[in-house]
């Protein structure tokens, strides 16, 4: 359905030209995404996890064409993304769900107009009555009442707003949905509602998901395949079961280790030290080496490439050498 080939996106974060000249600074580039490849088969969910600044949200935006890639390509159902985006019939097949339920709905619009916007833009249904009927149908589908369409976004709770967002995304009958942290702004009891709703819609409508999240537990519940990102690269990619039962990359292991233990086994955890370095000036070689317990001289000098290790793709010298 969707394929990313060596996708990269750089941002110019230099100071304004005059200041740069006065301070004799070079241009500075932020490599938000630096060579990311993955493929999502139809009807499946690929999740990208990672900490803030790892580039996962940038990937989401590249994939729906909100940013042009600096390098590499996105292929949507066999055609380059730029070609697909230019054709309304293709464009309507992809949609996006956002993180912040308070910013993702225009506060000045009624809910029915928010949901009807894609319908009008793609001219999917003609006539006022027919559009209203379709909006009612979509609201019912996400667990709200058709009468809710008359209200404004501020009259709803966070979870209900996220349902409205989903209804808007579904209104153009998409096949591919990019979900950028769709539950991280929600309370946990509401998060479960939304995750259930998304899974139910996926099996009913045969949707394909690219799911972005920082929460490993959430990712486990929704994914078929998971990619772990660190500083603009995917360091490990594997089928969900494999990744969670047998994580290979030291960073993946560190992430799982860091999650507080609800089972209260009293297990002493050893949190990974240090912090995520700046993507403007990433460490040499493997970007994780300053924090990695297995790092050696090679990790410092040479950037690892993703190699198959069992069912996983792992970019790590230690795993490759059998030290991991």
């Amino acid at each position: 359905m969707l394929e990313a080939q060596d996708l990269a996106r750089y941002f110019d974060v230099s100071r304004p030209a005059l200041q740069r000249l006065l301070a004799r600074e070079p241009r500075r580039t932020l490599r938000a995404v630096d060579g990311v490849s993955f493929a999502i088969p139809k009807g499946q969910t690929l999740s990208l996890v990672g900490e803030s600044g790892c580039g996962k949200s940038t990937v989401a935006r590249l994939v729906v064409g909100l940013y042009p890639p600096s390098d590499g390509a996105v292929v949507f159902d066999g055609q380059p993304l730029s070609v697909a985006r230019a054709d309304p019939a293709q464009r309507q097949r992809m949609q996006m769900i956002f993180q912040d339920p308070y910013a993702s709905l225009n506060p000045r619009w009624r809910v029915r107009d928010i949901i009807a916007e894609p319908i009008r833009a793609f001219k999917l249904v003609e006539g006022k009555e027919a559009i209203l009927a379709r909006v009612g149908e979509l609201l019912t589908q996400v667990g709200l009442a058709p009468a809710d369409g008359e209200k404004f976004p501020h009259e709803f709770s966070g979870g209900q707003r996220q349902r409205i967002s989903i209804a808007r995304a579904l209104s153009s009958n998409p096949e591919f949905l990019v979900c950028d942290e769709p539950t991280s702004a929600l309370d946990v009891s509401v998060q479960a509602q939304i995750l259930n709703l998304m899974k139910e819609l996926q099996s009913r409508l045969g949707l394909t998901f690219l799911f972005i999240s920082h929460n490993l537990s959430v990712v486990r519940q929704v994914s078929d395949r998971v990619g772990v990102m660190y500083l603009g690269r995917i360091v490990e990619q594997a089928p969900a079961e494999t990744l969670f039962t047998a994580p290979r990359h030291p960073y993946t292991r560190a992430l799982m280790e860091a999650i507080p233990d609800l089972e209260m086994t009293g297990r002493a955890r050893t949190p990974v030290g240090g912090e995520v370095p700046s993507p403007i000036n990433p460490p040499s070689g493997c970007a994780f080496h300053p924090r990695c317990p297995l790092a050696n001289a090679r990790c410092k000098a040479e950037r690892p490439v993703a190699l198959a290790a069992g069912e996983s793709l792992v970019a790590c010298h230690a795993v490759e050498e059998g030290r991991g």
Partner: protein
Amino acid sequence: MRGFFDSDLWWSFTRSRITMASAVVAFICIAGSALAPLLAPHDPFDLASLQLMDAFKPPVWTAEGDATYPLGTDDQGRDVLSAIMYGARVSLMVGFSATIFATLLGVMVGLLAGYLGGTTDAVLMRVADIQLTFPSILVALLVDGIVRAALPREVHDQIALFVVIFAIGISEWPKFARTVRGSTLVERNKEYVLAARVIGLGKLPIMLRHVLPNVLGPVLVIGTLNLALAILAEATLSFLGVGVPPTQPSLGTLIRIGNDFLFSGEWWITIFPGISLIVMVLSVNLLGDWLRDALNPKLR
């Protein structure tokens, strides 16, 4: 309409006596001047009705006062009250038109600069910056001077009103542009705008349908405060003699004319137009202040 009377705005309005009083005063000023032809006791422009015998009559409550001229008459026997009503009409008309002109221009520039960014933003905002370094009265004088020099006198008198409106409007737009640009920069990165971009909506529809309604709040405030400033600017220009043509005297013109008689004892000819101007500007200003506070969630 029921929605309006139920809103926080109406609620905060009813809680502030000063605001309600200013609204009443502003309403009287606007209604009184708009309906001047119906309400004014005399027609100050009807030369036939002017009696030179009635010149320099003091206000009605003084010893020589005359009940037909409540605020007295000027050197040509014109009723001061009527002249004020007609003059305020010109002042308000210029003020409103100049503000609307500045608002439209400023909002358009701000929206384009903020949403498109890059070179468009840099060029438009540098123009605004340069504009802001000149005092607005200087800009207005400059525009007026250029037009005067370029056009013959008869033509100039005909379009003088529009020149003043343009001159005042052009000196005020950067304020609107800066504010709108700032809010646009915030709004354009919000997720509802991204959602519209994902479905492939064009730049113009996004700007007009999504961004514009969400950046208008502060514009309303600046617009109201700017109305007071525009009225004052017009009065200043007219006082200096470069404003509206003498055939359509505004409050500023009346103050200038009356000024000549201030020291010979006929104070009412200039004082009453002056008081009217102050009252009008003050009430509009107070309304603007209230609107600013009422729309600012942090101060509520």
